[in-house]
């Protein structure tokens, strides 16, 4: 213990944070709720004084890169800081703060050791290819997430893994060393139990054998492979290249060559005005060299930044003595310098190419992994490539958004780390962290430029002048999507909050330096928009959050966007209303409608809501009427829904009645768009909905037409029941071929469906409609092995009356059973010979009604009708299969309503991200449905 006095406690309490020195240490004193705490004052990430940072919620945020530390414990709260802050004991005596300058044993000492991982070693071998930042961070994160199996890291560079940012900054100036930039602390790799194989290049991946070939001729087996092969400096084929040394900067070797070259040069030409080029220019200026930057585009960073910040950068470079040649094509290089296409010569004795980087995707590409058009290995939200055993992280990975399909590759320190962590979580099976706002920094001409969010060159941009200017990119709805700051980190901090809040802002107020940005938030941001409140699990489509099934707000949005949106909703069969005046009460989603045949023979679907006082005027389930008369005030409507009579419209004795502007033509009941397909009637609230044929697509239409071939239908009757679950669980159930053999023992027992049967789960290209199909087989053909897999299988049970299971071939189809989902609310059932449609009528998030209409064909003979009726025992609320699905759906909703909130796991068959799969042990069809749902819902 070594106690040292410092300043009065009152001063700390007054200022909140004060920098002090004690015992030769730079320390920070913070007052939190009256109590005083001491920590080291220098950020563990880069050199900055924390007392100049922002204190909030018991944490201090580093002013430089927004690293966050818990003041009480010193714990680093996430990127970019990874190392905890030293903390010191304090006491107050006679009003003075005393500090014990021997640091407290911090969280640092508890760094997770390999052996501490718990449940015993994981049998899976992880191999990481690439020993850069991402690779090393993955090795570290795997252990932090509790992965206990063997981890080997193979890196082509001989040097221990290091971070690249200093290469173009302090390292060039000799202000730091490569050792300082190393990712691992001394001894850390051993502690993690990571086998480092450095200076060794991998030459091929054999996915079938799960082996990596190495340049020394050996092979390395893996169960999970992580590609972290980074990027390479883009090479330019320039005439005259052989006459000079062309520098570029990607790795330590490059930096070791470039540093002395800059020092020896007098004039430096940098080809390429990207961040690395500008940083090199900045370093060369710091060394006092003449510097020219040659950029082919007409401005700097044209593909990345909007004009405002790019021009500011150009201005700063110019102010710092950099000669900028914009819109300048390079004709060639020579010992004299760089010749431009317009004939000018940029004299230089040191030429550096800073033309960006190309992803090092050669290994993955050769192994047949899916790649992006612009290069790089495609990955999902968890970092998995098209081969579920291979992940890709860092600069080489291109994340494809599962919903929009947008492909993004990021080259940044933060992404290297965050993508490594995501992959590690996915591999270790721990929950993925919520995505961070992208962040990038560049040190230029003595200042730091920072970017939060994803800027784009064409976004409208607002400039705001604080201590230094900052730029805010806005989207079409005037929401801040990115912030670019050059010298006033406070503006970036506020920018991040604006990005997170997702609220539209007034550009004029944003630009006005007199508006307090933190107040903009308080005034306008009481309620976060729906897409910020309901965020999908970071893992992506292999999870479905409970709120999808239980939230009233989500339900209301479904009604608006799906059932009342551009969808075709089944309302009934034409055979239910054969004569003019015949009508039935039915629904579109939850909304009551009337389907009625008029005297022209057409079928109309109108809302069951009187245009006078909203009464649901049609009360009978079905009937025949010449007109509809609302019982309340006797307004009457014709069979097309037109208002035909208003009692006392003109008043009595010239008194009362409707005004002269009342036009009955404007007050009919709401009419829906109607279409028919071979006797099935569909309605839509949307005028824009495509034709039913386009809505279904050819493949789905063929399955539909098998049941509705145009033969006249005979209605056999209805079932109605309520299910205590969210309505989507029903279509999901029919996109879940996995359950069929497991839940429905009956099917298996009597050989209707067995694993290994010919079967298919077909999804339409948009992911909304689907057909689950199977072909009947003999129980006898179930292999012993398959029986053992299915707990449900019971031998030796036979039906006394096998007529139930007889299949009369009547369709031109390879399938004896098809269960088709016509999104959103129709199921077409063809269970051998029992035919029916099921209409979903949602009643709120936790319940729906299902209306079944069972039918045959008008030309069925008596025996066929009876056969259909007998086979009906399989389905419906008391059906052998039907009742089990109802129960299962209820159990699922019970689980969500009664236990702690969370998410579902729908991860079977990861090889098919979403869509048609050729195995039944798959949830790819459910994922496809949610991909579509999320697109429709904007969530």
């Amino acid at each position, binding site marked *: 213990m070594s106690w040292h006095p410092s300043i009065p406690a009152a001063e700390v309490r007054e200022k909140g944070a004060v920098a002090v020195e004690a015992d030769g240490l730079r320390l920070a004193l913070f007052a939190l709720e009256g109590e005083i705490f001491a920590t080291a004052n220098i950020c563990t990430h880069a050199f900055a004084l924390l007392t100049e940072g922002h204190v909030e919620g018991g944490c201090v945020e580093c002013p430089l890169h927004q690293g966050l530390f818990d003041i009480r414990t010193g714990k680093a709260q996430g990127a970019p800081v990874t190392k905890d802050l030293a903390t010191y004991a304090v006491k107050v005596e006679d009003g003075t703060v005393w500090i014990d300058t021997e640091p407290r044993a911090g969280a640092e000492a508890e760094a997770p050791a390999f052996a501490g991982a718990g449940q015993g070693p994981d049998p899976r071998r992880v191999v990481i290819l690439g020993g850069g930042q991402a690779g090393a961070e993955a090795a570290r994160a795997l252990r932090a997430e509790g992965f206990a199996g063997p981890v080997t890291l193979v890196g082509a560079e001989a040097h221990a893994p290091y971070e690249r940012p200093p290469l173009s900054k302090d390292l060039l100036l000799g202000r730091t060393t490569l050792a300082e930039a190393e990712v691992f602390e001394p001894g850390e790799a051993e502690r993690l139990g990571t086998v480092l194989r450095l200076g060794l290049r991998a030459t091929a991946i054999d996915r079938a054998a799960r082996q990596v070939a190495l340049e020394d001729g050996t092979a390395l087996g893996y169960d999970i492979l992580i590609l972290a092969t980074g990027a390479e400096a883009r090479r330019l084929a320039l005439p005259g290249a052989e006459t000079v040394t062309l520098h570029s900067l990607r790795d330590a070797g490059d930096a070791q060559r470039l540093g002395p070259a800059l020092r020896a040069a007098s004039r430096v030409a940098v080809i390429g005005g990207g961040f690395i080029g500008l940083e090199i220019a900045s370093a060369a200026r710091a060394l006092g060299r003449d510097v020219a930057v040659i950029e082919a585009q007409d401005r700097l960073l044209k593909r990345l930044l909007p004009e405002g910040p790019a021009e500011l950068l150009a201005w700063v470079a110019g102010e710092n003595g950099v000669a900028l040649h914009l819109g300048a094509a390079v004709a060639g290089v020579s010992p004299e310098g760089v010749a431009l296409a317009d004939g000018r010569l940029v004299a230089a004795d040191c030429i550096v190419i800073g033309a960006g980087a190309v992803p090092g995707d050669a290994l993955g590409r050769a192994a047949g992994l899916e790649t992006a058009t612009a290069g790089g290995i495609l990955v999902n939200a968890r970092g998995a490539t098209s081969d579920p055993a291979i992940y890709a992280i860092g600069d080489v990975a291109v994340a494809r958004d599962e919903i929009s399909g947008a492909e993004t590759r990021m080259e940044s320190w933060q992404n290297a780390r965050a993508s490594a962590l995501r992959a590690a979580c996915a591999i270790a099976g721990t929950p993925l962290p919520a995505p961070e706002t992208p962040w990038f920094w560049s040190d230029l001409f003595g200042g730091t430029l920072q970017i939060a969010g994803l800027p784009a060159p064409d976004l409208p941009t607002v400039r705001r002048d604080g201590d230094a200017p900052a730029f805010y990119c806005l989207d079409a709805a005037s929401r801040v999507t990115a912030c670019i700051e050059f010298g006033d980190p406070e503006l970036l901090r506020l920018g991040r909050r604006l990005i997170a809040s997702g609220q539209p802002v007034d550009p004029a107020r944003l630009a006005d330096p007199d508006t307090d940005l933190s107040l903009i938030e308080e005034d306008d941001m009481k309620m976060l928009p729906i897409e910020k409140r309901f965020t999908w699990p970071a893992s992506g489509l292999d999870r479905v959050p409970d709120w999808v099934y239980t939230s009233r707000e989500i339900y209301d949005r479904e009604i608006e966007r799906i059932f009342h949106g551009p969808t075709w909703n089944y309302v009934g069969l034409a055979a239910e209303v054969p004569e003019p005046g015949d009508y039935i009460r039915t629904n579109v989603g939850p909304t009551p409608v009337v389907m009625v045949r008029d005297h022209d023979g057409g079928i109309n679907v109108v809302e069951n809501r009187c245009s006078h006082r909203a009464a649901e005027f049609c009360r009978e389930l079905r009937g025949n009427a010449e007109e509809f008369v609302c019982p309340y005030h006797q307004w009457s409507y014709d069979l097309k829904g037109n208002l035909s009579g208003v009692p006392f419209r003109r008043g009595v004795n010239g008194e009362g009645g409707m005004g002269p502007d009342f036009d009955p033509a404007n007050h009919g009941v709401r009419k829906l768009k109607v279409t028919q397909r071979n006797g099935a009637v569909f309605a839509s609230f949307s005028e824009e909905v495509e034709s039913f044929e386009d809505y279904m697509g050819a493949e789905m239409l063929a399955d539909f037409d098998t049941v509705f071939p145009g033969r006249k239908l005979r209605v056999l009757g209805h*079932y109605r029941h309520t299910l205590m679950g969210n309505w989507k669980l029903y279509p999901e159930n029919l996109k879940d071929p996995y359950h069929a053999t497991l839940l429905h023992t*009956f099917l298996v027992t009597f050989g209707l469906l067995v694993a290994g049967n010919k079967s298919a789960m077909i999804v339409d290209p948009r992911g909304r409609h689907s057909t689950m199909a199977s072909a009947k087989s003999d129980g006898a053909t179930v292999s012993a092995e398959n029986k053992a897999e299915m707990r449900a299988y019971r031998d030796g049970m036979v039906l006394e009356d096998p007529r*139930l299971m007889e299949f009369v071939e009547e369709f031109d189809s390879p399938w004896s059973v098809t269960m088709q989902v016509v999104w959103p609310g129709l199921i077409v059932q063809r269970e051998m010979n029992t035919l029916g449609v099921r209409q979903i009528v949602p009643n709120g998030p936790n319940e729906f009604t299902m209306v079944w209409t069972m039918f045959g064909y008008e030309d069925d003979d008596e025996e066929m009708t009876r056969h259909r009726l*007998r086979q009906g025992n399989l389905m419906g609320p008391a059906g*052998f299969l039907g*009742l*089990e699905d109802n129960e299962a759906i209820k159990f699922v909703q*019970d689980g969500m309503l009664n236990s702690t909130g969370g998410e579902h796991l729908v991860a079977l068959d990861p090889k098919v991200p979403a869509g048609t799969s050729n195995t039944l042990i798959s949830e790819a069809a459910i994922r496809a449905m949610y991909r579509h749902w999320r697109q429709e819902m904007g969530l």
Partner: protein
Amino acid sequence: MSMMTGERAAADTRAARREARLAIEEFNAEYCAVLDDGDLMDWPDFFTAEAFYNITSRENFDHGRPVGLVYCEGRAMLRDRALAIAKTSMFGPRYLRHYMANTRVTGIEPGGTICATVNYILIETLAELPEGRLHQAGRMIDRFEPQPGGGLLLSSRIAVYDTLLVPNALVLPV
């Protein structure tokens, strides 16, 4: 003098109907006891070999639509249902209790067949719904066949429920 001797045409008298009603009430009490507390596999034995059994909504029945939640032709099919429910079906634990009342004999045919109706209600109690709820209310339209050894068997039972909306699932027969 019993109406159950098959030779002569059975008389559709007031007394015969009264006697039949008593027999039906006894029959139904046993029937309910088997469904509520007994072995489901005994349930098919209340029917003749050729019996017809149907549970359908009033909506269907009134419009002459033949579909049934359960639709069985013959005792073998009833046995298959009992077996399937007892041995293969997955459903949550529950108690079901059947009540039959207002027995009406509507006719006695010359062959001895007794035509009758009876109202029924079915109360369902689930583990998560211990207070129980009405599951079905309706009427049975029955045909009973007097058996040579005494007693009755159903040759047809059509359960017509007014409660159109079935709560979730109907797992046991009515």
